[in-house]
């Protein structure tokens, strides 16, 4: 669920479309927008405080075949992303789990890891190398 929530909506939608899965389902909770209060800690490690809210979309659904229940709670206001994430979550509890993993989750994780690596590599290129100047006199 964490992977699906963090995934860029465009990548998830594209992989979902490529996988060609379209199981019948019924909404247990149709996608709805809401807010989650994000907390931080004083000094990074101390007492919690309320930093500010973020928008989220959540939904729950039941697959008609087998009755597996899928949940999603994703950042932003994106009903379609929440629907696909909940469907993946439900399918992961069925015989289609391997297919979902191979065709959606694994490539998604790879793309995200690549983006993360590229960012870390750019940051690494801005790391300061200190060198000490030789002092004069002798």
């Amino acid at each position, binding site marked *: *669920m*964490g992977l699906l*929530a*963090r995934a860029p909506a465009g990548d998830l939608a594209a992989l979902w479309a490529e996988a060609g899965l379209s199981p019948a389902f019924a909404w247990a909770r149709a996608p*709805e*927008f*809401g*807010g*989650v*209060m*994000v*907390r*931080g*800690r*004083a*000094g*990074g*490690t*101390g*007492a*919690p*405080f*309320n*930093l*500010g*809210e*973020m*928008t*989220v979309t*959540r939904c*729950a659904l039941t697959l008609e075949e087998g009755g597996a229940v899928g*949940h999603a*709670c*994703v*950042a*932003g*206001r994106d009903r379609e992303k929440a629907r696909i994430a909940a469907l993946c979550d439900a399918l992961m509890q069925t015989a289609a789990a391997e297919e979902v993993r191979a065709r959606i989750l694994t490539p998604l994780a790879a793309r995200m890891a690549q983006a*993360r*690596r*590229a*960012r*870390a*590599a*750019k*940051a*690494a*290129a*801005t*790391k*300061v190398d*200190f060198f000490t100047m030789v002092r004069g006199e002798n």
Partner: protein
Amino acid sequence: MYVAVKGGERAIENAHAWLAEERRGDTSVPELSVAQIREQMGLAVARVMAEGSLYDPDLAALAIKQARGDLIEAVFLIRAYRTTLPRFGASRPIETADMACKRRVSATFKDAPGGQVLGPTFDYTHRLLDFALAAEGEVPPAPQAEPAEGPVPHITGFLNREGLIQQERPSEETPPDLTRQPLETPADRSLRLQALARGDEGFILGLGYSTQRGYAKNHAFVGELRIGDVEVEFDIPELGFAVTIAEIEVTECETVNQFKGSKLEPPQFTRGYGLTFGMAERKAISMALVDRAMRWRELGEDYVGAPAQDEEFVLYHCDSIQATGFVEHIKLPHYVDFQAELELVRRMRREAAEAQAAAGAAAMKEAAE
């Protein structure tokens, strides 16, 4: 006498229509898309999210477009939208120690593990206008280097080990929320941090600057400034466990301040803390300075009457929406209030004139006698 009137609907409608036209500007120039604002005005988006107290880059970009670039107006739009959202709950506190940093610098330790990572910064630019940006063109990709593996620990952790810095006391208490209960002073630190995090950058900057110039002086170093992505974990009640629902970008600043000790604490370094949504280091540094100044009571320092120490002054004036609401409302019709004042001034003048006339008459009479 005052007669109640209503009207102006047509004038208002037409004013708003003209506003829409002005917002669009010269139609021979292509219109800005919300995605363009989100991607290319990222720091404005960050500020609107931080002060609007709602992390949603798309909404913040839309608000900036609607507000014609007036960021306080954009914050107002976001705050108004925020109130329409049902609150699903609160996240677990974000773990900034696990941040995927794109920038991380320390002014106190040159050789900190993880190193000094400048990231995409304005620092060390010459602040010369770059006329090349006036022409459209592709930007070459940024250089890459082999990223170092391993954690990037908080710098204050090193001082903690030696006991040279005041410790933060971890707790799992539910913090007060000024969006749910009215803000009252004295406010505890968590409430102050919430207010500062959504406070106006300019106001917090000015107050932070005042602490450096000698008002509630606390000579501060930036122990650490880090910007990057952190995961947000949220307990899903139906599932009974927490899941990651997002990665958000935040800026964190920890200041390390000289402290000669007090009746309550031994000589040691003390800390100020700043945390904001998005990339907003000016705000985070300023917030840390003001946070430190307001901690005088818990650290047993003297209250010297400095504005940044006065939590009632800071907390009740740092919110740009409250401030602009009250400041700007005086331009709206106050016909009844003003009519009353007009009556009052006229009466006072009449009474003063009558009193003067009476005094004059009495003096004349006295002189005549």
